[in-house]
Structures are given as structure tokens and as C-alpha cells.
């Protein structure tokens, strides 16, 4: 039949690509994406307020880059990317279960691994875009009178890369959690705002059981002052090792997610 002759031999990559484009389109249209876009722009509003205060009311003596690196970055690192990764990461599987749309996907000639990876990639791209646009806008607002200083762009690039790595890693973790825990949001909230905060205060190797440790290892330690408590007791991992660890953590959690999704039985609530 003509249809059989036009069907290409499928490969993992083409299935991945098809799943990616399906969920990227769906993700872009979804109302929740628009809401989270607004959320990720809150630091931009904060940056505007700070700049307004500095320029018109002379309320702060801190430089733009200082505010960007110590406040805006902290806000992104310890709140925004966690919330984005938690919601979109757990949505990879949970959304299909809650919405009962899983049968449409599991009865297609698409491997379960390519479904997980394709949807993960689509959602990660969405939230990376949200974050990067916000970060860049914050940078430009806070440093608009110093945009000629090329050294600042190195900081922007470094900080953006750290946030992107963080998003990729956290999203992979929450994707895995979403494949096998029903109350993945609760678990994710307790992990993100409980474990990740508390564990940093433990000395030695215990810190390495938090993803945020590796992210903070890629950032310079703050000068001693009122904000050094944010990195209290940080015993940083060398940057190269930190990047390798983040990549390995991402690969491990994605692999586990694929395995769990492949073998677990999902019974949809009637």
C-alpha cells in the first residue's frame, strides 16, 4: 500500500524529535506556560524597582552587577528555577496521568524512552527560554549605564550558564520523581525548599548530596559581608568536576525515568 511505502523506518531520534515538537507546541499554547512566563519575569520587575530606586531616589549604593550577581541570581537559583523545574519536570509524566491522555501516547509507535526524553527536552527548552530572557533583561536593566564594559558580559554568560545547567539538572530529577511518585509536587517542594537548603549547612561531603552545591561551586564565593551566610560552610567542588557531576546527575535521572516509565504500570483513575 502507498501508505506503507511512504512510512520511513523509525528511529529513536526521529521519534524523539516528533515527541519534542508535539509537546513543544502544546507547552507553548498552554495557559500555565503563560503564567510561569509572568513568574519568571518577576525578577525583571524587581530589577526595575531597584534601578528606579537607585537612579531617582538614590536609595542604594550597590552597583548593578553586584545586585545582579547577589540578589537576582540568588532569587533565580533558590526559587525561580526550582519552581519551574518542579512544575514542568513533574508534568512530564503526571500531566498525562492526571489528564488521562497517556493512552494516546502509549498506543503510538513511539518508544517510552523517546516519549520521556522528548517531552523532557520540550519542557526544558520552554523553561530555559523563560529564564534566559528574564536574566538577560535583568542584566540590561541593572547595568544599563555600564553596558560598554565587556567584562560584565562574562558574568552574564557564566550566571546564565549556571542557571541553564541548574534547570536541566533539576528538571531531570523532577521528571524522574514524577514517573514513580504520585504526590511528586509535595516531595519536590520538600526537597527543593527543605533538603536543598538544610544540607548546605552540613560540612564535608554531605553537601554534595545537593544539586545546589554543584551550582554554587560554579559561582564565585561572595565577599565576607552580610550575604556570606548564603554560602555558609560551602566547600566548593572544582568547577570542571561540578559540571561533570551535573551532567552525570542529569543523565542518571533521565535514565532512571526512562526505565521506570518503561516498566511501571500506570492505572488511570476512572
Amino acid at each position, binding site marked *: 500500500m502507498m501508505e506503507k511505502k*511512504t*512510512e*520511513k523506518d523509525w528511529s529513536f531520534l*526521529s521519534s524523539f524529535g516528533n515527541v519534542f515538537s*508535539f509537546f513543544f507546541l502544546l507547552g507553548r*499554547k498552554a495557559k500555565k506556560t503563560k503564567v510561569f512566563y509572568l513568574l519568571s519575569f518577576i525578577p525583571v520587575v524587581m530589577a526595575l524597582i531597584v534601578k528606579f530606586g537607585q537612579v531617582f531616589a538614590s536609595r542604594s549604593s550597590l552597583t548593578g552587577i553586584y545586585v545582579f550577581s547577589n540578589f537576582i541570581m540568588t532569587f533565580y537559583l533558590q526559587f525561580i528555577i526550582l519552581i519551574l523545574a518542579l512544575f514542568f519536570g513533574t508534568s512530564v509524566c503526571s500531566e498525562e496521568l492526571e489528564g488521562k*491522555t497517556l493512552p494516546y501516547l502509549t498506543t503510538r509507535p*513511539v518508544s517510552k524512552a523517546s516519549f520521556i526524553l522528548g517531552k523532557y527536552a520540550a519542557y526544558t527548552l520552554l523553561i530555559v527560554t523563560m529564564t534566559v530572557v528574564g536574566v538577560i533583561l535583568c542584566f540590561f536593566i541593572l547595568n544599563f549605564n555600564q553596558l560598554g564594559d565587556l567584562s560584565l558580559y562574562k558574568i552574564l554568560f557564566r550566571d546564565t550558564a549556571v542557571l541553564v545547567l541548574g534547570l536541566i539538572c533539576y528538571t531531570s530529577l523532577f521528571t524522574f520523581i514524577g514517573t514513580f511518585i504520585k504526590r511528586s509536587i509535595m516531595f519536590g517542594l520538600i526537597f527543593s525548599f527543605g533538603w536543598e537548603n538544610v544540607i548546605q549547612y552540613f560540612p564535608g561531603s554531605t553537601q554534595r548530596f545537593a544539586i545546589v552545591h554543584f551550582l554554587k561551586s560554579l559561582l564565585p564565593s561572595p565577599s565576607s559581608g552580610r550575604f556570606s551566610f548564603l554560602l555558609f560552610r560551602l566547600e566548593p567542588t572544582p568547577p570542571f568536576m561540578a559540571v561533570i557531576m551535573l551532567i552525570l546527575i542529569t543523565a542518571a535521572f533521565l535514565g532512571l525515568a526512562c526505565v521506570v516509565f518503561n516498566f511501571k504500570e500506570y492505572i488511570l483513575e476512572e
Partner: protein
Amino acid sequence: MKAVIKTEKLSKWYGNILGLSDVTLDIEAGITGLLGPNGAGKSTFLKLITGQIKANIGSVRINGEGVRNNHRLFSKIGFCPESDSFYEEMTGWEFVTGLLKLHNLPSSEIEKKARKALGIVDLEKNKDRRIKTYSRGMRQRLKFAQAIAHEPEILILDEPLNGLDPLGRRKLIRLIKSLRDEGKTVIVSSHVLPEIEAMTNDIILIHQGKIFAQGDIHYIRDLIDTHPHMISVKCSDPRKVASRFIKEDFVLNIDFSSEKDTFVVKTNNRDEFFRYLPLIFIEENSDVKEITSPDDNLQAVFDYLIGE
């Protein structure tokens, strides 16, 4: 005929609750009706044969291949789920084409097939509307469209006529029958008896996770020869005709209904009754208006088999 779908000792538990018990079936090409009340195990069976859930015991094979985690098989299978769930923010067109893309078809093919499928279910005019604005009937038709869009050889339809108006039901039934004529294998589940009757004579009766009967509706009915049959006769002189049956051994009961020209006979030997009936009409010179068998349908078969 070679079985397309084979199940062997298929059993499924949900914790302590038995979903399906020891089901061994061979399903051939054509339309097979899966009939049972709510909670009988129809959806469990369909989920097992589409690999959505794992069997605790037993196996399912489609065209000789195992189903679970065999994604390549699904290029030949179309599934229409029971639940009314969609990606609400998508339009009908995006939904069908998006799912078609997952079959690795070229864009031109995708557009052609999507247009054809949506045309078949009369949704082409509304294809650019968001699914959340669709009526219940449109949503059901969209579900069917996504199941047939890639022209699968095997169609598994879980309560496909839910939510459709009578005209929609007739259209869909005609469509399903046309798929059979194309040589496809269709399994249709329902708890609405006239729907199954309208589509096929090959049925599987399921209740409490067990298969009660499988085969032709009439063959199944004939198997139950211990169960008396009821025949309704409408004629010009019912009492005169009925009185001729009173003394026959094969007549167990005669009821005169509220309609003056009708009587209902209960007999344990249909063949003998129908052999005798025309002779009586001729001898009594009575005009025959109507002869029907009120329980020669799935409801009676089903009720009898489940003891209701």
C-alpha cells in the same frame, strides 16, 4: 481463519480485586463485540491487549507478537479510549496531526490522512476550534478520528458510541461496518446491547472478569435450550389461535397482553412451535399481523447468563 489477537489465560488483579480471570480468546478479523455491564472487565481486557497494563498471569499476542513494550506494533493498531480526555488547549486539527506525527509519516501524508479522518467524522468544519469548545459528541468523534487517522489494521474501540446522538451513532456504526468490509479487525466494547447487535453477530459476553460466552448471538442463544423462549404473536383472533396451543407439551405458558390482538407464548421448543404455528393459522383462518421473539436478543441472553 487465523486469529489476529490471541490471549491465553489472561488474568489481572487490582490489589485484591479481580479485574479479569483466565481469559483465553482468539479474535479473528471482522467486528467482535465485547459486551458486559459496567465493571465487567471490558476496559481491563482492552487495556491489556493494548499493552497499557500488565497481565498478572497469561499473555497477549497480536499477529504473533507480544504487546507490552512493543511500540512498533502500534503502527497497526488504533485505540479509542473510553475516557473523555484531551489536550484541551489544542485544536482538533493539531490533535490529530500531532498524534499522526508520532507515526513518523511525512508532512504531506499527515495532512492528507488527518483531513480524511476528520472528514469521515464530520469534524472538518470545526477542526480549527479548540477542543475545550467542542460538544460531547464532537469530542467522541475526535477520539474516533485519532484512532483511524493512520489507517490501522486493528481497531480497538472502548465504548465508541458514548455521547453520540442517534444520528451520530448510526453513522459511526455504518463506518465501523465499512471497516470490517475492508478486512480490518475491530473490537468494540459496549454495555448498550442494541449497539452491538447493530454492528455484529460475533460477540463475547463478559461479566465479573470472566468470559461467559463467545460466538454468534444466535448460536449462543441456541445453546441455552433449557431456557424457555418467548414468542409474541399478533393476529386477528388471538384467543382462538392460543386455545389451539394449550394442550401442546412444548407450550409452558400463554399470556394475554394488554393489547387485545396479541398473546405471548412461552415454549421450551422453538422449532416445534414454529412448525406448528403456520398450520394453526391456516386451520383457524386467522390473519397474522406480527410474530416477534421478545427475548431473542442480547439482553435476554445476557440476563439469563448472569442469572438476572
